[in-house]
């Protein structure tokens, strides 16, 4: 699996600027509904990218990120609707909660790898789900929490879209810097060989711990603004489906590509909208998509494309 990022090339930067420019002017051409979709894609793209830090650059597949993301959403909604705090303070608290939760997950998970890591993050995420479902006094149980909590400055849907676009650019930049730093290189070393890094004298558990916590922090950022976007949270936000969908976005986009996460998010959200307008069987479609991708293209669309191109290039 290629985790090399080619972002050093001027082409990459140019494409980035072009995409950003299209993103900025897009609201002038799109309907309100489409802008809503674009906002959603950006938010989930950020979540998928936070998962990519672990899957693509650390070699650890997490199924608990939906819970980390959703915990942040829950805290933001609870703080504003129940505790009456300001939305800005609520966002800070939401992100802090997600980061702490990720740190707790990380403390346990750094000792494991491969399937055990996956199982553990899955079980931890589901415990969060169980608590959100049952602790009705705080979380509202099945009904969840609802309230118009978006700050006034962002009330307009276009303004909100631009805000999320800027945030997504910032998060992308932050994550890119993170994975390309010497620290990120160490994570890649751990991905490729745990034992070699250990014998070279690196503190592998500590690196994994920090990597996981950072990843949780970014998932928390996405979760906090999702609260503003959705104005509603229920146990399905922290459910396994959420983790699976966002992992699938990262995989479709190609693990270790970062930008691919937005492609994956677009593909999956477009598919979801297409499917829901015809049938209520989104769960089945999601399951079938997941199964097919695992069989035919586990490296994702971007990865598959790169592999095909490499094959083509080596022939000529």
């Amino acid at each position, binding site marked *: 699996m290629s985790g090399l990022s080619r972002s050093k090339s001027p082409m990459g930067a140019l494409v980035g600027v072009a995409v950003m420019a299209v993103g900025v002017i897009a609201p002038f051409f799109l309907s309100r509904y489409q802008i809503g979709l674009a906002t959603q894609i950006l938010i989930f793209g950020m979540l998928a990218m936070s998962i990519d830090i672990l899957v693509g650059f650390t070699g650890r*597949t997490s*199924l608990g990120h939906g819970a980390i993301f959703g915990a942040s959403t829950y805290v933001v909604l609870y703080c504003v609707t129940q505790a009456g705090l300001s939305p800005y303070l609520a966002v800070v608290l939401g992100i802090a909660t997600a980061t702490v939760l990720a740190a707790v997950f990380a403390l*346990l998970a750094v*000792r*494991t790898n*491969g*399937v*055990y890591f*996956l*199982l*553990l993050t*899955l*079980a*931890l995420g*589901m*415990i969060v*789900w*169980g*608590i959100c*479902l*049952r*602790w*009705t*006094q705080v979380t509202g149980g099945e009904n969840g929490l609802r309230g118009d909590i978006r700050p006034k400055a962002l009330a307009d849907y276009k303004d909100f879209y631009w805000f999320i676009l800027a945030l997504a650019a910032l998060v992308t930049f932050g994550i890119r810097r993170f994975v390309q730093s010497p620290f990120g290189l160490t994570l890649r070393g751990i991905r490729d060989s745990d034992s070699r890094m250990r014998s070279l004298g690196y503190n592998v558990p500590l690196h994994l711990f920090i990597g996981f916590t950072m990843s949780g922090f970014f998932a928390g950022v996405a979760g906090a603004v999702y609260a503003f976007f959705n104005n509603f949270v229920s146990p399905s936000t922290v*459910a*396994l*489906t959420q983790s*699976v969908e966002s*992992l699938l976005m990262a995989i479709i986009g190609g693990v270790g590509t970062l930008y691919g996460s937005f492609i994956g998010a677009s593909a999956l959200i477009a598919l979801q909208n297409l499917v829901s307008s015809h049938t209520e*069987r989104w*769960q*089945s479609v*999601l*399951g*079938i*998509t*997941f*199964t097919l991708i*695992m*069989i035919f293209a*586990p490296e994702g669309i971007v990865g598959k494309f790169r592999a095909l191109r490499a094959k083509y290039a080596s022939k000529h």
Partner: protein
Amino acid sequence: MSLFQLLNGLTFAALLFVVASGFTLIFGLLRIVNLAHGALYLFGGYVGFTIATKLGSFTLGIMGAMAAVAVMGFALNEGLLRFVRGFELRQVLLSLGVAFVLNDMSLVIWGGDSFTVPIPEELMGGFRVFGTFYPKYRLFVLLMGILIFIGLWVLINKTRLGALIRAGVDDAEMVEAAGINIQRVFLMTFLLGSALAGMGGVMGGAFLSLYPSADSEILVFSLAIVIIGGRGSLIGVGVGSLMVGLLNTLGQVMFPELAYFVIFGPMAAILAFRPMGLFGKAV
């Protein structure tokens, strides 16, 4: 904890044992973490419910559910998992995709209502156990749990198939090199494990009832049991089930809303000291 609650914990542990033993058998031997196990449990429960209400026989319900779920397991193993053989993570994620489809199909067929599998008349009512009145059916579940533990123990320790399974858990390639068709052993184990999930579905469906998120709940418990007990160890599942079953009941008595949180504690503690679980072996 009163005797009543202790018995509740024990009977719940017995049910968990039935479900989780299938899960860990498959995990231990085939290295497949079958995340569709919860969905198979629920599906089996629904099939058993339908048969038991239509034909009025609980036994037929259990047998039908076991057969139906074994067929699903066969299809899953031979139809899908064979394409990703040898890739641990892809297998796990694939089984998760299957779980989604299976749950959704169950929702289409049986709807979102909650059902309770009808129990036979002989098991209705209760016994007086040391002065506490206790439902007969739950004692029956406890008994079944113990019988299945004994049955599996004999199967694994005293039969040829069991010897092959044990050898396969340690080193599947060597078993194959010795001229054994390990694929067939794999398949048998997969079918057995799936059938146990189906059986658990009917047994659990009669006292926990069946509803759309029941599969996730049972899957969390199974995961916790495997994490605590370790991969592929029968004793591990037994001990894990007892711990999780009793702790969960204790949690429900003490702080009902956060009962889930109680199984988190031992899981965390065990992972900190024995990442492979209490009875797990390093691969």
